[in-house]
C-alpha cells in the first residue's frame, strides 16, 4: 500500500502500456483479451483513485521518472487540476471496456480483437500520460501515443462503415498538423527558456515578464495545436466523421476523454506555464478563445439540428459543449474556470453514456439514423430510458449533471457582467432541447417498424452493455442532485490551481 501510494502515478501509466504489449501477443482465445484489458483498466482506476486521494492529502505529487530531479529528468506532476481528470479517464476506460465485450464481438474480427484491445489500452495510457506529465516534450510523446492508436481505432470502424477510413485519414492529417504545431510551440518555448519542465518554464517566463516574441509565438502555436486536438470551433472538422464512423465503444471513449485531455493541456499551458497576467495570453483568451467558443456553441448546435445521423448529431453537440468549457476559460475568473471544469467532467459522463447507448442501439438493430430510432422505447426500454436521462442531462434539465455545470457557468458569466454569454448558454441549451428532442420524439412516439407484418419485439441490449449505460445515467443524476457536495469542490480546487492569487 505504501509502495502504491508513492508509485501509483507511474503505475497507472506503465501498467496499460506494458499490458498492451502482452495483450497484443495473447492467443486468440475467446474473451481472454477482453478480460485482461478490463482487469488492467480496473487496476488503473484503482491507482488513479489512490493518486487522487494522495493528492488531496499532499496537495501536489511529483514523481521523478528514472530518479532524475526535475529540470534534468522527466517528472510527473499531480495537482488538483489533473488528478480528477486522471481518474475520469480511467473510470471511462473501465465503463467502455465493460461495454466492449459484446461490441467488439460484433464489430471486430475475432483474431484481431487482441491487437484491438492493445490499441485501446495504448490510447488510454497515452491520454493519461498526457495528463499527468510535468514535462512539455513528454506531453508531445504521449499525445502521439494516444493519437496513433486513436487513428487506428477510428479506422477499425470500417468494419461497420467504409467511410470510417476517410474519417480516420482526415483525423490523421489534422491531428498530425495539430501535434506538429504543438511541438513547434514547445520548440520555441525551449529556445526561450532552455528547459522542458513546465514548472521551470513557468518560473523563467514569470521572471522574463512573459518573455519575448518567441514566447508569444510559442503560445500561439501551442493554442492552435491543442485547439485542433480539442476540436475548438473552426478546427473541429475532423470530429464529426471520426465520432460517427468509428467503432461504437471507441466513439464513446473518445468523446468522453480525448478532447477533455487536450482541454486539460490547454488549461495547463494557458494558466500554469504561461500566465493570464501576460498581456498576450489574456488577449488571446478573452477575445479569440471566447469568440470562437461562442461562435462554436451556436454554430455547431445549429448544425447538430440538421443532421440525419444520430452519432453526427451528438458529435456536433460535442463541439458545442467544448465551446462551454472554452467559455469558462474566456471568463477568466475562478468561478468561470470552475464552471468550465465541472462541465468538462459532466460532459464526459453524459456524452460517454449517450454514445454507449447509441452503440447498443446499433448492436441490436443496426441503427445509425435518427429516423430509424422509431419505437425504441418499446423495443429497448432500458437503453432508451438511460438515453433519455442522459439527453436531459445534456440539455441541462434541473436535477441532472448538465444543469449544475451550465448554471455554474451562467452564474460566472453573469458575475463578470457578460449577460450575452448567459443568453448564449440559454439559447444553445434550447437548441440542445430540439436536437435531442428529435431523437426522443422518434423513439417514444413512433411505432416500432414491422417486418413481414410483425412489429419488432422487445430486444434489450445485453447486460454487459446495460451496466455502463445505466451506471452513467445514474451517475449523471447523482451529480445533478448531490453535485454541489463533491464535484464542485473538486472543480473549485482545480480552478484555484489555475488562478492562484486570483486578482483577476
Amino acid at each position, binding site marked *: 500500500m505504501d509502495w502504491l501510494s508513492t508509485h501509483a502515478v507511474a503505475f497507472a501509466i506503465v501498467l496499460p502500456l506494458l499490458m498492451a504489449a502482452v495483450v497484443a501477443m495473447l492467443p486468440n482465445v475467446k474473451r481472454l483479451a477482453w478480460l485482461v484489458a478490463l482487469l488492467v483498466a480496473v487496476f488503473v482506476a484503482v491507482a488513479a483513485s489512490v493518486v487522487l486521494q494522495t493528492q488531496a492529502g499532499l496537495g501536489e505529487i511529483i514523481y521523478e521518472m528514472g530518479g532524475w530531479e526535475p529540470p534534468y529528468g522527466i517528472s510527473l506532476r499531480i495537482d488538483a487540476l489533473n488528478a480528477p481528470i486522471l481518474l475520469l479517464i480511467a473510470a471511462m476506460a473501465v465503463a467502455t471496456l465493460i461495454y466492449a465485450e459484446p461490441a467488439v*464481438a460484433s464489430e471486430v474480427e475475432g483474431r484481431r480483437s487482441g491487437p484491438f484491445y492493445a490499441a485501446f489500452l*495504448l490510447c488510454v495510457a497515452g491520454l493519461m500520460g498526457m495528463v499527468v506529465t510535468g514535462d512539455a516534450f513528454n506531453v508531445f510523446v504521449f499525445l502521439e501515443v494516444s493519437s*496513433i492508436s486513436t487513428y*487506428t481505432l477510428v479506422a477499425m470502424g470500417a468494419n461497420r462503415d467504409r467511410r470510417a477510413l476517410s474519417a480516420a485519414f482526415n483525423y490523421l492529417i489534422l491531428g498530425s498538423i495539430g501535434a506538429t504545431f504543438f511541438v513547434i510551440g514547445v520548440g520555441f518555448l525551449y529556445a526561450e527558456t532552455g*528547459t522542458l519542465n513546465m514548472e521551470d518554464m513557468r518560473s523563467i517566463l514569470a521572471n522574463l515578464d512573459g518573455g519575448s516574441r518567441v514566447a508569444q509565438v510559442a503560445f500561439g502555436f501551442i493554442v492552435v495545436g491543442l485547439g485542433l486536438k480539442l476540436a475548438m470551433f473552426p478546427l473541429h472538422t475532423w470530429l464529426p466523421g471520426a465520432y460517427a464512423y468509428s467503432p461504437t465503444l471507441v466513439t464513446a471513449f473518445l468523446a468522453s476523454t480525448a478532447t477533455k485531455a487536450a482541454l486539460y493541456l490547454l488549461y495547463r499551458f494557458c494558466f500554469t506555464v504561461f500566465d493570464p497576467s501576460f498581456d498576450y495570453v489574456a488577449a488571446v483568451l478573452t477575445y479569440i478563445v471566447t469568440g470562437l467558443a461562442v461562435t462554436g456553441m451556436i454554430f455547431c448546435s445549429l448544425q447538430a439540428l440538421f443532421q440525419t445521423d444520430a452519432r453526427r448529431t451528438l458529435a456536433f453537440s460535442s463541439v458545442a459543449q467544448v465551446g462551454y468549457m472554452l467559455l469558462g476559460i474566456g471568463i477568466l475568473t475562478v468561478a468561470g474556470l470552475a464552471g468550465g471544469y465541472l462541465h468538462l467532467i459532466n460532459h464526459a459522463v453524459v456524452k460517454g453514456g449517450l454514445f454507449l447507448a447509441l452503440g447498443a442501439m446499433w448492436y441490436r438493430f443496426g*441503427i445509425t439514423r435518427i429516423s430509424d430510432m422509431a419505437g425504441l422505447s418499446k423495443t429497448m426500454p432500458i437503453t432508451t430510458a438511460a438515453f433519455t436521462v442522459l439527453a436531459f442531462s445534456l440539455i441541462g434539465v434541473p436535477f441532472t449533471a448538465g444543469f449544475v455545470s451550465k448554471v455554474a457557468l451562467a452564474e460566472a458569466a453573469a458575475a463578470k457582467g457578460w449577460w450575452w454569454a448567459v443568453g448564449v448558454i440559454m439559447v444553445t441549451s434550447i437548441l440542445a432541447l430540439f436536437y435531442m428532442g428529435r431523437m426522443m420524439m422518434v423513439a417514444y412516439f413512433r411505432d416500432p417498424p414491422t417486418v413481414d407484418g410483425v412489429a419488432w419485439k422487445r430486444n434489450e441490449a445485453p447486460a454487459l452493455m446495460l451496466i455502463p449505460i445505466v451506471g452513467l445515467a445514474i451517475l449523471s443524476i447523482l451529480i445533478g442532485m448531490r453535485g454541489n457536495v463533491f464535484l464542485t469542490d473538486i472543480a473549485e480546487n482545480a480552478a484555484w490551481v489555475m488562478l492562484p492569487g486570483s486578482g483577476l
Partner: protein
Amino acid sequence: MIANIIGAVPTSPLISTLLLDIGLLTLLVMVAFAIVRMRSLFAIVMLQGVYSLVAAAWFVTLDAVDVAFTEAAVGAGVSTVLMLAAMLLADRESTPVPMSRQWGPLAVVLIAGMAMLYAVPDLPSYGDANSPANSYVGTDYLARTAVEIDVPNVVTAVLASYRGYDTFGEVVVIFAAGLGVLLLLGLDGNAGRFRAQVMGRKLSDTSAPTGSTDKTASTSQRRKSSGGGGGKSSLGAPPSITRYEGGAS
C-alpha cells in the same frame, strides 16, 4: 570531424559553415518546392529521400551527428522504401487539386510562416553559447553525464537515461504504429474483409457503400439468422427459417 575542419581554418571559422548551411538550406527549399509541384508519385517519393539526405547532411554541419544518422537511416533509407511500397498500392500520378481548394492551405502556411518570422528578431543568434538552450540544462547534461552515467556519447545518456521515459514513449509510438498496420492491413495483407454484424435484427441497409455485392448478401443473411448472442453459429443454417429470434435478454 567538422569541428576539425573548422579548426583548420582559423581566419573565418563561421563563414565556411555558414556558406555550407545556406547552400544546404537552399537545396532543401528547392527540393521541397519540387515535391509540391510534382505529379508523379514515384518522383515525389524519391525526392523525399533526397530531402532527407540533404537534411541529414545539414544536421552534420550543425554537429548533430546522432540526428543526422537517424535522418539518413530512417528518412532516406527505410521510409523511402516503405513509401514506395505504399505508392505501389495507389495511383502512380496524383490528381491535380483545383486552385480553389488550395487557398486555404496556402493561407495556413503563410500565417504559420509569418508567425515564425515574427519570432526571429528575438531568437538568440545562431550558435550563441549564452542562449538559454545552450547554457542551462544542455550544458549541465554535458557536465553531469561524465559523473553520473559515464558514457562517452551524451546524446545516448540523455535519450536512454535522463529522458528515458520519453524514449519509452517513443518505442510505444512505434509499437502503436505496428499495431495499426497489423489491424488495418494484416501482415499477410488479409485484413479489412470482415464486416461488422448486428446481433439482433438489422433494420435497413445504411446508405454506406459496402464491399462487393455478393459479400454483403452473405453477411446480411448471417445477420438475419443470428439472434441474441453468438452470431457465428448460424453460418450453415438456411437463412429463410429464422427471420427473427432475438428475445428479451
